[in-house]
């Protein structure tokens, strides 16, 4: 299990994956997924009571825990956050689905997309993580790049520059795509009933 692998070995895996090793990727993903789950579970468990939890802090912490920072270059970091964002989304969905089963109706797991708005997690600005996921899945069907950008930025906490590096496109392109993608997302999530009704 993950414990048996040292940070520098994991870092080697990351390098190997970056160098094109599929095997390294296959070994890395469960490690990262496990670590994310453990951290998220701990944070979400009762003993870790708190009011709000920053998702990217978990990703970040996973990163800092798994890798030997001195040996990771910025490109490798981008790759890591690329898969971590995807995995984090999966972890959250699993959690939200469990919550839904428990709660039966109501909002399973409210999330907030922008902490700079001091509105608490309620009302119009709070989003159910399941809705967010559905919206992203719809966007994936329409525009994979935009969906990835959203995923990386929200679930991985990447900056524009880092996103550009992870997706190997120019920051200017990312900026443009990002602007439209978040507009699309806002419209999807802001309760336009017609669009959200299942077809």
């Amino acid at each position, binding site marked *: 299990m993950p414990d048996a692998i040292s940070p520098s070995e994991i870092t080697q895996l990351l390098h190997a994956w970056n160098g094109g090793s599929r095997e390294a990727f296959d070994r890395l993903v469960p490690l990262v997924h496990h670590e994310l789950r453990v951290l998220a579970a701990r944070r979400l468990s009762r003993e870790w*009571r708190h009011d709000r*939890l920053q998702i990217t802090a978990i990703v970040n912490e996973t990163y*800092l825990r798994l890798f030997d920072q001195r040996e990771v270059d910025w490109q490798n970091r981008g790759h890591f956050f690329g898969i971590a964002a995807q995995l984090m989304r999966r972890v959250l969905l699993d959690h939200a689905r469990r919550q839904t089963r428990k709660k039966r109706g109501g909002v399973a797991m*409210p999330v907030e*997309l*922008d902490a700079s708005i001091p509105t608490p997690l309620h009302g119009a600005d709070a989003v159910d993580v399941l809705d967010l996921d559905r919206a992203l899945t719809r966007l994936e069907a329409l525009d994979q790049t935009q969906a990835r950008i959203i995923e990386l930025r929200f679930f991985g906490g990447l900056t524009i520059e880092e996103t550009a590096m992870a997706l190997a496109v120019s920051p200017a392109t990312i900026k443009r795509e990002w602007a439209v993608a978040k507009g699309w997302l806002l419209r999807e999530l802001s309760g336009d009933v017609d669009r959200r009704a299942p077809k």
Partner: protein
Amino acid sequence: MTSAEYARLKEIVAGALGCPDADRPAYLATQCGADTTIRVEAESLLASVLRAAPLYEDPTLLIAGDGVTLDAFEQLGNAFEGTARYVVRRRIGEGGMGIVYEVDDRERGQAVALKTLRRWSGDDIYRLKREFRSLADVAHPNLVSLYDLVIDDDACFFTMELVHGTTFVDYVRQEPSATARAARAREALVQLIEGVLELHRRGIRHGDIKPSNVLVSAAGRVVLLDFGLATNVGQREFINGQVAGTPAYLSPEQSFDANVSTASDWYSVGATLYHALTGTPPFVGTPREVIERKMLVDPEPAATIAPETPDELSELCMALLRRDPALRLSGREVRARVSAVELGTVDSGSTVSAPGFVGRADALNTLRAAFEMARAGRSASVMVHGPSGIGKSALVQHFIDTLANERVLVLRSRCHEHEAIPYKALDGVIDSLAGHLRALPQAERVALVPRDAAALGRLFPVLRTIGLNEDVQDEADPIAFRRKAFTAFRALLGRLAERQPVVVDIDDFHWADVDSITWLTELLRPPSPLSLLVVLSFRSEEFEAKPFLRSVVERIDIGTRFSVPLFPLSPTEIDQLIGSLLPVRIGAASLQRAAIAHASGGNPFLIDALARDAVSGGSRGEPTLDEMLTRRLDVLPPESRAFLEALAVCGRPMLPARVFEACGYRGDERPLVARLRSAHLVRNSRSADRVEMYHDRVREVLAARVAPDAARQIHAVMARVLVAHGDDDPEALFEHHRAAGHTELAAIAAAAAGGKASAVLAFDLAVTFYREALALEQDSAQRARRVADLAKALEKAGRPIEAATAYLDAAQRAHGDDQIDRRRKAAEMLLIGGQIDEGLRVIEEVLRTVGVPLARGHATALASLAFRRLQLRWRGFEFAAQPESRMTHEDLFRIDACWSITVGLAMVDPIRAADFNVRQLLSALGVGDPYRIARALALEGGFSVLIPVAAARSPRALYRRAEELAGSGGQHYIGALTSVWGGIGAFVTGKWAEATHLCARAVTLLRDHCTGVTWELNLAQNFFLFSLVYQGELREAAHHWRRLLESARERGNFYLELELSTRLSLIWLAADQALEAEREADEAVARWSQRGFERPQYLRLLTLVQIRLYLGRAREAWDLLERHRADFRRPLFRRVQHTRVETANWRARCALALAPRGEAGQHLRAVALEEAQRIDRERMPWSNPFATLIRATVACQQGDVAGATKGLTAAIEGFTSAQMHMHAAACRSRLSTLVDGEHGETLRTEATRFMTDQDVRNALAFLRVLAPGFPE
């Protein structure tokens, strides 16, 4: 929509975004043409994109944790609309925790800040409350004052001091010049450090220090906000402020939760200082970048960014910002570094540091050793004692501080002279216990709370807040209730002690109360003492002056006892302490230091006071504490002085608001209290929200300064204020009313306090209050009632002689049946207490009124007994049960009067007692009262063994019948009676083990379920001990015996004292204290009113005989016995088998001890053999070996070694099978000198080991008592 359609849409929208706003409609029209579907889509998406443009620029996905229920979000959505008390003025700010308002507090009459909270789970609310309380009593000028916490169904908020000010950074940076900025930074930093240190001292980590949480008022006062509340340890980094903002001020370790400690706060102080000095936080960037960078690199030195920054400030700043918390400056270092640069700019109150702690290494080692014992699962107690001001509290505080890093539960109390609440020494302990429990998660708490915890909640209401308030079955019997409560308390502490070491600390123990002490002693009583460390501190001068206290402390036989006497500090220590107190600039004046050292006499409290005096420019000579305090008080503002004087006069912890009000002031008392606190004049009390004088010495000096008239006035106003608020106890009201000279009100309050104490079973305290009430009460009807209350309380407190006096007094104030009944009670108390003559006189009067004669002599009584027993046999035990209402008052009274006599005479005159018991049995059968029949039957069972004359029934059948009749109401009491009398029966027939067992059972039943059972308990405890001694269990007997003897003396229980100090004199002798034994026996008999040669004199005689034998003065022993030979023929002695054996045995032993070898001794040996024959006649397994031993001794004296060896061997066998191991050991020892070789050696070793194990000090002398007449 397809992906192709979306790609087109996205292109159109991106294009539109590139156009100036005004051109966009035209652009869209061109691009979409006639395709209205895409046009609508594009317009909608464009609008959304524009709307989203400012959003999510630094996306941070936040999710709610499980601790927050969904309802809480709804709750938060509703703005706070104010309440009747709090009227909203405006919204000041908001954050993740809630919204902050400025409100008018109508009750306080001032503006306060009000912060709304999210609704949390039950556990969270308890935790919040606890935290709030611990913070609410923080009165520090550099910490925001918290006021009220309100949690109910509609709202959840707390209020605090409203601080108007700028942030730390702005305050510093407002100054244009770098020099002025540095000066401001230093000045504000000093205060910030004081605030943080105060929090840390209380075990609170702030966790979120940042510029917006550090405000500076216009007057330059630094106030730290938002501490401790509404966060859980280790969770701080996810609270809104940081999540939403930047983690710029958080320590690197806080991003990881790893080893977050107080060092994290110092990092934040450093970051805030850095920002103030340089204009920017140490790191800037996205949250993640900041978190990462601060872990990987050090910030640029402040002096590099702002070159004009003084080096020492920049260095201090960088030392605070060290990445490794272990390398960061500690709180003390910070203060030392800052003080070095910046002393003297703050007001004089804070230039003297908190008193440091010096020396006392030995004392600390002892405490540590005792603690280690407790941790290892044993119980230990430490008595810390020394004169006032020597540093007892400081020592214990320091010791407890050293435990800070260990998982220890510390429960602390302090006793107050002027506080008379039930269980006052335990009050604080219970408070801290409640606090601890409240903080535990529900599930854990439930697991800890023992059965019957609700009873505990009844005695200590504070425990009800932790759910110990489920309905308790109302116990008719208060003693049983108290027992339950105690058992629950013990179980609770036991469970806690299994989880972690528990330290109980009680300060100023010299003011403790008896009831608390009883509980405390019981906690650690063998056989299964709790693994606790109990630390008791008391003043040596009080200890010397109060013999009672001394006896109490000695009785606290708590596990392994350590004594820690505190002496004046050594000259080096004095110097060290002065050094830690005085700033360098004053400290340099060595002359002054020498003066302080001399004047203090090495007393740390005086050193502290003198240092303060020196700082404020006190005199150069050697002032007294009185002068110094006077000087310090004179410079205080009048309101502070008034407050202090009122507090000193009250002499107990008070709610500051009440004192403030009593002084005639209105508004907020907190600033005043904070000032007095920092000047070390007052401190927060351990009982929650109260304050008290900083030291008892200060209180004494201050109280003495107040003129008597003024003091009266203070008490009068205080009483009025307390009554107006309806918030104080009768005990307190009594103190104030009495001191104010309101006799009438004081009498009422005292009676109420007495009733309250009785209700919680603190009978001794109840006695005190009833006496106070009596002394003050004028109204004769009220006085009569109080006397009756007093008599009852005394009876329940087990003080029979005092109770008798009170009953007689009460009888004089009553009429008719009441009067007679009280006289009967008085007689019973007198008899129980050992005032036999007086008791008989009173009871005779009583009997005359109901027509029952009292048999004069023993012979008459014996005849009467025989006659009545025959009558009983003829009559049988059948009866027709009647309800009590059908019985005549006279009948019942006659029965009860007989009962009183039976009880009173049972042990001193068993024949007459047995006679009266049969009489009451016959009457009860005639009347048909099952309870009274049962009671008499139980006693008859015992008497039939003791005085078998004409007794037919087997005692077992009597006991069984008694228990059948007892019914549910009296089952415990009747059960206890049959056990006691069964035990006595077993004792007189030599079944020691059975007697021990039955008496122990009776003790338990009586203690747990019965009240007012002094007599029954006396019997049960006595015979329990007697049987132990017969079995040779001297060590265990001694343990119980000492405690009982003390309590008997203290309570004026003459009977018990007599029995214990005569019958058990073997215990004295084992301890080689023959002289003490004699003095004790003399005193006990002298207190006894009966004259002539009655049982008391008989018991004393036997004691003296034993002592003479022990001392080797056989002639005196023999003479003593011979002088009373005639007396032994009286029925009182002849009729009791045990006494017959006893007298024969001692006479034989004395004869043998005295008999010389050869012809000259023949006569005495004949006497011994004659007595042996008498013993033979009794044919009891326990008495036979005595006769065997006597014959063996005679054989030995006659040189018949073979006969002696054989006899001793048989005696050993006989004693062993009768379980009389000490006697067997004595015979072994004697035998060992007659047989040679290995066998002799084995015998000697066995005997010696047994005696040593039982703590026999002088085996040689001891053998002279048990087996006299052998060559030594």
